[in-house]
Every structure is written in C-alpha cells, then in structure tokens.
C-alpha cells in the first residue's frame, strides 16, 4: 500500500499569495473569515469539490497557492452567489473564485482537456473577435478540444436542437467588432491599431 505523507511545510506556501488576492477590489473581506462553513453548507456543488469553498478560503489566506489553483473547486463554482449572500463576514466568495480562475487560466494551471477553463478561454476569444458568441459553434469547438466521446453522448440533445430549429452555425458578428479588441488593448495600456 503506497503511503504519502500529507504534511505541509512553510516552503509549500507561496508567501504573499493571500495578500495578493485580498488586494483585488472586492476581495478584502477574506481577512475576516472565521471558517464557519456556511459557504460550503449552501454551495450546491460543494459535494463534488476536492476542497470545499471554506477550505479554499483557508488555503488562499494561508498562501497555499498551488493547492488552490490545482483544485477542482474553482472550476466547479457555478457563480450562483449563494455563498456570498449567506457569508456572515460578507466575504465575496464568488468573486474570489473568479480571481482564482483568472490566475489559473493565466498561469495555465489546469488539467489538459479540462472543459471549463477551455470554455472560458474560447468564449473570450470568440467575443474578442466577433463581439458576440455563436453558442453552437462554441460548444462544438469545446467538444472537439476536450472529448469526442462526450459529444457523441449528447447525440440526442443535438437531434433535439436541430429539430427545434436552434442548431445554428452562422457566426454572429457585430458591425464594430474591431471595437472590442481596441477596448481590450486600452485596458492593457496598449495603444494603436489592434490585430
């Protein structure tokens, strides 16, 4: 029986990670967390998470960046805001989850072919390019990148969509689609014409 010790040393902490998250506007209240567990208690997805929302808050505050960004939790969050609304310390847990998602995407920390971050990324790319998303195109692209099998498993859904006239592959695009990229560049502080 292979046994691995679960002890964590101070070297496992990424000092400053907690502070960094708490310095993002809206995430300051994390410093008041009393670990009551209300967030996990109301979260509909907490039963599928490897670390419950409460644990993720504790890990974040304690600077265990790797454990947090590699957890399934941040991807399982459906942003239903139940935790934020119930938290007695008014911690905006959902927004902290978004922050953690962003960092994970930015650093490329997620399992290969894991659909959720891939969906988020592709969604943003499609919007940047066209100004709108075409749902069916997005979904098909996602299945192609992650799991053909899953796509096949949804064949009945596909048939239903065709039958009910919702299977459209025509790219939705706005007139001033260049505006989107220009705005995003302005956010990044880049000037001049964009790609």
């Amino acid at each position, binding site marked *: 029986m292979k046994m691995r010790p679960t002890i964590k040393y101070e070297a496992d902490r990424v000092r400053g990670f907690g502070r960094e998250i708490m310095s993002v506007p809206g995430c300051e209240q994390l410093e008041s967390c009393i670990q009551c567990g209300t967030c996990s208690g109301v979260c509909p997805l907490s039963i599928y998470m490897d670390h419950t929302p409460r644990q993720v808050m504790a890990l974040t505050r304690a600077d265990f960046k790797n454990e947090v960004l590699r957890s399934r939790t941040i991807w399982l969050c*459906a942003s239903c805001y139940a935790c934020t609304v119930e938290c007695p310390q008014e911690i905006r847990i959902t927004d902290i989850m978004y922050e953690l998602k962003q960092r994970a995407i930015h650093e490329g920390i997620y399992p290969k072919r894991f659909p959720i971050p891939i969906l988020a990324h592709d969604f943003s790319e499609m919007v940047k390019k066209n100004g709108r998303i075409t749902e069916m195109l997005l979904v098909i692209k996602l299945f192609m990148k992650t799991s053909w099998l*899953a796509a096949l498993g949804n064949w009945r859904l596909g048939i239903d*969509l065709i039958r009910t*006239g919702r299977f459209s592959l025509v790219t939705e695009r706005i007139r001033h689609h260049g505006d989107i990229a220009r705005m995003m560049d302005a956010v990044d502080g880049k000037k001049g014409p964009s790609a």
Partner: protein
Amino acid sequence: MKYSYFPGCSLKGLGRAYEESLLPVMKHLGVELQELDDWNCCGATAYMAVDEVKACVLAARNLALAEKSGLNQVMAPCAACYLVLNKAKHYFHDYPAIKATMDRALDAVGLHYSGDTPVRHPLDILLNDVGLEAIKQKVEKPLTGLKVATYYGCQIVRPYATFDDQYNPTTMDRLMEALGATVVRYPLKTKCCGGSLTGTLPEAGIRLVYILLNEAQKRGADCIATVCPLCQFNLDGYHAQVKAQYGDVLVPTVYFTQLMGLAFGLPDKQLGLNRAAVPFKWRPTEALPATAPVPA
C-alpha cells in the same frame, strides 16, 4: 413606455424562444422595445473567469450604447446578462480604479458611460411599470387549472436583489396568478441549475437538474416557468440523461413570456412553443366571450 432592448447572445441562439415570446407579449401590452444597435456579448460568467476588468468593459460598452441611443432604460431578459450588466454598473460606482479603466477603454472607441443607466428585468418592468391590473385586462384565455412551479434561478436575485425578495421572490408568482394559473409551492425556486456544468461536468450538472425537476414533479407542477435561457435549456434539454441516471421526471419547462402569450390568446407559432425539447402540450381551454367582464 419605451425601453432599450438588450437580447444577449443566447436569445438569438439557443434561447430564441424567449425572444420569440417576449416581443409579441410586450407589443401586446404597449411596451415599446428598441433593440440596442450593435450590442455586444455581455461576457456572462465566462469572461469574468478570464479577466473581470475586461468583462466590465465589455458590459459597459452596451450601457454606453444605450445612453447614446437616448433610451436610457435597458431591459435585459436574460438573467445572466441582467446580472453582468448590473455588476458592471456596481463596479463602476464602487471601485474608482476599475472605473478609470472602464472610462479609458470606452474612450478608445469613442463611447462614454455615465454610470446612471438602469438595467431592468422584464419581470420588474411588468410588475412595476405596466402593472398587474393592465396585464389582467389583456388576459383572454386565463390559465385556469395550470399548475406552475415558478423558477427564478440565481442570477436575478443574487447577489443584487433589487425588485424582488432575495430568498422568496414573488414577482413571477403574482404574474402567474394574474394570468389565472395556480402557483405551486416550489421551495427550490432560487436554487442553482448548474449553469454550464451540465455540459462541462455532467455528473454534477445533471444531478442539480434532476433535483429541480424531481421536486417540481413531486409538488404536482404541470410545468416550470423560467426567466433564464440557460435554466430553460438545462431543465428542458437533458431529460434523457436525467432519466438514464435517476428516472423519469418529465416536467416541461417554458419561459414565463410564453405563458403570458398563451393567456393573451396569441397564436402558438408566435410564442416559440415548438422550440422546446420536451413539448408543452397544455393549452387554456376557454376563451372569454368578448362581452364578458374581464376577470378581477
């Protein structure tokens, strides 16, 4: 009553039945909707996962366009769009650093957002601007005998509860009652449907869908009325998977606007009722005679 209409990507795609039923119903009530010219995707929950400042900027472009159009009240039927646009507004007011970035980005494309444009949900407009009395006047085929489970979902009550109670919203309930339907007690009315997890992580997503459908069935609902295209899609499109894992809980899911259309006597094909995977077969039986007094 004229409003800027922000459909969002879903109402043009998978959720087109929502738009198809919303437009004629609003027209029937004398509410003018002008689709926001060249609106862009609000970003939904996906863009927030990538960069929240950029997500705010994306949403703010629409608010700036609305201001530019002169119609400065925006109706956003899609629950996700409603939340995201309101969130952008809150961030604009609460965080000066983010506001500065938003100003800069909008300026780069010649737009300006003042921070004032209210973003409203159709339920809010129907109950507060149009009024239940006016709606009752238009009912020609009351939905008598229809048992509805009103399902609000997350995004129109959390985290911002503006026009309805956060824990026990009743706007849609009152609307359904005004149409003559019977609202069943549905304790899961604000419970999350799983959002995009039904597609990306089915084991988790399907279970949430099952819980919602099962409880509606247990409470004797003939249908579930929704306000969100993703909720409708989840509750409607995955019956096969639910059946395979848990058993048959066939309860059709419709948009509340579709029920309104039926009550107003509008023809089926104007209401997108054929778009659902699980067909909603119930129809109101009698039309009121033309000379009869309208129901109180």
